């Protein structure tokens, strides 16, 4: 018990010490510094301003800015400083382009908030409005102008789907992301979302004291507040993409008013040079927050956030014959020399399957079957191959698997007997094998997957991992991806066939033929509904595909075009690919020339 008494004595001492500390602290605040605090509290208001950090800029592969910030002036109000929301609404209605009734309601709501943080009344006000507010600032209590940063997209809709947009963080984002407050701007889609943590900066913090007339008097505060700490703004990091802005614009132009997508990739390292998707949207509308009716109106006609190249899955149609042909060669199911007679149709169990060419192709060997895209040849030969063999080759070419791009993507369907049993609880039928061989039926793929598949042929057997971000500029970007053993003889056979598909008399892709550069490619016209159901309605028309690489002898780029309900791949998609390919090589030549000119 002696020991306990000893400890109690320590406790009494402890209590006394704290009593003295607090009394001394009160003496310091109230007596020693009291006068200053009194003057401050009678005349001034303390404001805490958050200084928004600019997000990082986004550059294309040539250092061109494709997304950056422009200053914007946001009108904000301190809820706790509002004494009369009615009169404030009245005064503001004279300046702003907002109806007085709406302002009244908004301000009444804001004034009732138990918040010390400024709330936005109007974003991105005009210079005239700014001028009028600055002029009347004495009458407009509790108001201030924040210098913000608004995202500016110099290429507008051409890259909007790829780049994405930002918005205020929602509750889920506040809870899961690092260092985020409810009023912060975060990337919601596309590149803005994927690289958000780097693009986002750290907001600064400024304490200011204002007098009754809204004028800043910061010195008075600094005197009495030794502990006051302002915080510097830290800008977000810049991001360099592999996209070529000019090629992106060209691809977007090529699509025109059609719904669809064009993907261009460097076959040597998987760098995405262009990724256009239509319809797109005007980022200005998102920034300004259109009312729901306006937004719906827009969406009806021409409004989409959907990146068709990676989030759209489509039946690949005849472009899949590249893989089927390779499988037939590898499995020795088809001797390139032997032929099949195509009368324009094929029967299995009395069920008729048509070739796209009603009058038939006559005697067809594998080469001709690819060049002229004969369906009957593939019907006949794929039956011997079987669905599960075909499935394994599709897998080898990366179909039905994620490509590994950093953006959110779908993986499509690479069917097999096991797949059908698992998901549809049904056995596999022979008729399903033969339509799968020509890219119809259950099989679906994203345009990016088709592009990678094409690049495998072009680069001699590497499944690239597609990249949209330029990594270290100093080191040469090596091919990243999986090199799988592809038989070079089979690949050479395919290369020849794809060259002829574009460059021979009867090839299906002749509209992609170019005088500038040699092009190899394959067309596809994927049925949306069964052939029996003929319709002239646009939404029942076939999807047009064209996938190609160039130059034919030493390939550099692969280009894949998909036009939703566009009709014939050879007629609609091939010319678009040609335009993009020609632009790429023209630009390349121009850039080399200017480089030489500069170095001389």
């Amino acid at each position, binding site marked *: *018990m002696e*020991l*306990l*008494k000893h*400890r*109690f004595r320590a*406790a*009494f001492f402890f*209590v*006394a010490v*704290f*009593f003295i*500390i*607090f*009394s001394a*602290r*009160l*003496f310091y*605040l*109230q*007596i020693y*510094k*009291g*006068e*200053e*605090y*009194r003057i*401050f*509290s*009678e005349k001034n*208001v*303390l404001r*805490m301003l*958050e200084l928004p950090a600019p997000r990082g800029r986004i550059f294309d592969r040539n250092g061109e800015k494709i997304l950056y910030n422009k200053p914007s002036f946001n009108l904000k109000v301190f809820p*706790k400083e509002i004494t009369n929301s009615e009169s404030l609404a009245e005064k503001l209605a004279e300046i702003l382009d907002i109806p007085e009734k709406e302002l009244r309601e908004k301000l009444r709501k804001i004034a009732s908030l138990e918040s*010390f*943080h400024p709330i936005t009344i109007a974003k991105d006000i005009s210079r005239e409005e700014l001028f009028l507010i600055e002029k009347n600032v004495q009458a407009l209590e509790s108001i201030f102008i924040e210098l913000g940063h608004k995202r500016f997209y110099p290429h507008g809709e051409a890259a909007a789907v790829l780049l994405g947009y930002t918005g205020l963080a929602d509750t889920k984002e*506040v*809870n*899961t*992301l*690092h*260092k985020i*407050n409810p009023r912060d701007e975060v990337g919601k889609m596309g590149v803005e979302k994927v690289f958000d943590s780097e693009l986002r900066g750290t*907001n600064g*913090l400024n*304490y200011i004291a204002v007098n009754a007339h809204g004028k800043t008097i910061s010195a008075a505060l600094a005197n*009495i*507040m030794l*502990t*006051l*700490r302002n*915080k510097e703004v830290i800008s977000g990091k810049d991001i360099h993409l592999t996209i070529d802005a000019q090629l992106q614009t060209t691809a977007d132009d090529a699509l025109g008013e059609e719904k669809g997508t064009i993907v261009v990739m460097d076959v040597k390292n998987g760098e995405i040079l262009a990724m256009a998707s239509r319809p797109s949207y005007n980022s200005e509308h998102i920034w300004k927050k259109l009312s729901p009716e306006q937004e719906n109106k827009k969406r009806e006609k021409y409004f989409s956030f959907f990146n068709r190249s990676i989030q759209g899955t489509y039946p690949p149609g005849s472009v899949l014959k590249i893989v089927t042909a390779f499988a037939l060669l590898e499995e020795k199911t088809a001797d390139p020399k032997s032929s099949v007679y195509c009368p324009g149709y094929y029967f299995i169990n009395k069920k008729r399957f048509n070739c796209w060419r009603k009058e038939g192709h006559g005697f067809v060997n594998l080469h001709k079957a690819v060049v002229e895209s004969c369906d009957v040849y593939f019907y006949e030969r794929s039956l011997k191959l079987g669905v599960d063999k075909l499935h394994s080759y599709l897998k080898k070419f990366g179909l039905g698997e994620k490509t590994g791009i950093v953006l959110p993507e779908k993986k499509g369907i690479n069917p097999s007997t096991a797949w059908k049993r698992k998901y549809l609880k049904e056995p596999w039928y022979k008729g399903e094998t033969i339509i799968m061989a020509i890219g119809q039926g259950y099989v679906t793929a994203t345009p990016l997957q088709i592009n990678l598949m094409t690049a495998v042929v072009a680069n001699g057997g590497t499944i690239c991992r597609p990249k949209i971000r330029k990594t270290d500029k100093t080191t040469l970007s090596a091919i990243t991806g999986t090199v799988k053993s592809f038989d070079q003889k089979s690949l050479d056979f395919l290369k020849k066939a794809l060259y002829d598909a574009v460059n021979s008399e009867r090839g299906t892709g002749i509209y992609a033929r170019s005088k500038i550069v040699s092009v190899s490619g394959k067309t596809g016209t994927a049925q949306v509904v069964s052939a029996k159901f003929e319709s002239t309605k646009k939404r029942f028309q076939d999807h047009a595909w064209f996938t190609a690489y160039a130059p034919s002898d030493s390939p550099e780029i692969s280009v894949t075009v998909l036009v939703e309900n566009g009709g014939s791949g050879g007629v609609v998609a091939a010319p678009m690919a040609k335009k993009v390919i020609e632009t790429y090589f023209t630009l390349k030549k121009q850039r080399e020339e200017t480089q030489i000119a500069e170095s001389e």
Partner: protein
Amino acid sequence: MQSLSRSSWVLILTMLLAVAGLVNLYSISKLTGLEAFKKQLIWVMGGVMTMAVISRLKPLMLKRHSFAFYLFLLVLLVLIFVFGKTVSGSRSWFQLGPISVQPSEFIKIGIIMMLANYYGSEVGLKSNYRSSELFKPLTFLILPTIAVIAQPDMGTAIILVLIGSSIILLLGISRKTLLWMIIILLISIIPIWHIMLKDYQRERIHSFLDTSSDPFGISYNSIQSQIAIGSGMGYGKGFSLGSQSNLNFLPAHHTDFAFSVIAEEWGFLGAVFILLLYFSIIIYILITATSLEDRFATITCFGVGAMFFWHAVINIAMATGLMPIIGTPLFFISYGGSSTLTAFIGIGIVLCLMRK
């Protein structure tokens, strides 16, 4: 002084503080209305009655029922995750008709009695406990603390740990055990930080430790509180005339920052007077603790004293800008039903133990 018994003094000081709290709430009712004042008045009346009832109990009954009391509150703390109500991000309340109850306040008393029961039951006058003997008391402390952290309510969790450790340290720990505990604590910080906590939880702790990293609130509120206190000067601005508090620049002026309102309106004199009342009660409780014969009674009494002490220290240090902000009420002065009732129960227990 001798003419009045010690229990009368504790009672007088308690009532003075309760009245000061009510007057203070009334003085800021211009803005928030009389709602808070009326509610608090009812809680105070209920508290006085509860205190009266407890003070008439037999001390032995307290000891006998301490385990049941503790267990009951622990179960409530768990049930809160099923039936609880979330207020400003923390799931700490039960809604019972018009009133909301916060079990994490009452568990403070529960922990005190449970620890007193454990140490009071020991045979002999043992002191300086070894690690094996600390397992039980630490469990009694840690279980409710984990539940409170999960709500999440850091402020209350810290108070629980402070009260519990005060008692454990009063009874003493052997030097070897103390060393081991420090080492284990230091080692466990790293894995807990990296594995167990989620990003946003780490963020909360960050902003809790560094006032400048959280732009929303902490430093701003602290500064506003200091302006309020400082501008009160020697004699204050007068009843209901505190401009900082009444113009609503002082945040949470009726709860966490109620002391700042007193300091603004009644000046240095008023603030020091409240401080004096508060610390006098604490001293009286501690003196009572030393005078009691029974070990359980001594420890319980000391625990209640520690509870008042830590609440006062954290709340006043926060209001005067000596510490980052932790939402902790100042008993009797801050508005809040559960904390007021807890304070009265604490005093009731002290009065009960004094009676002999």
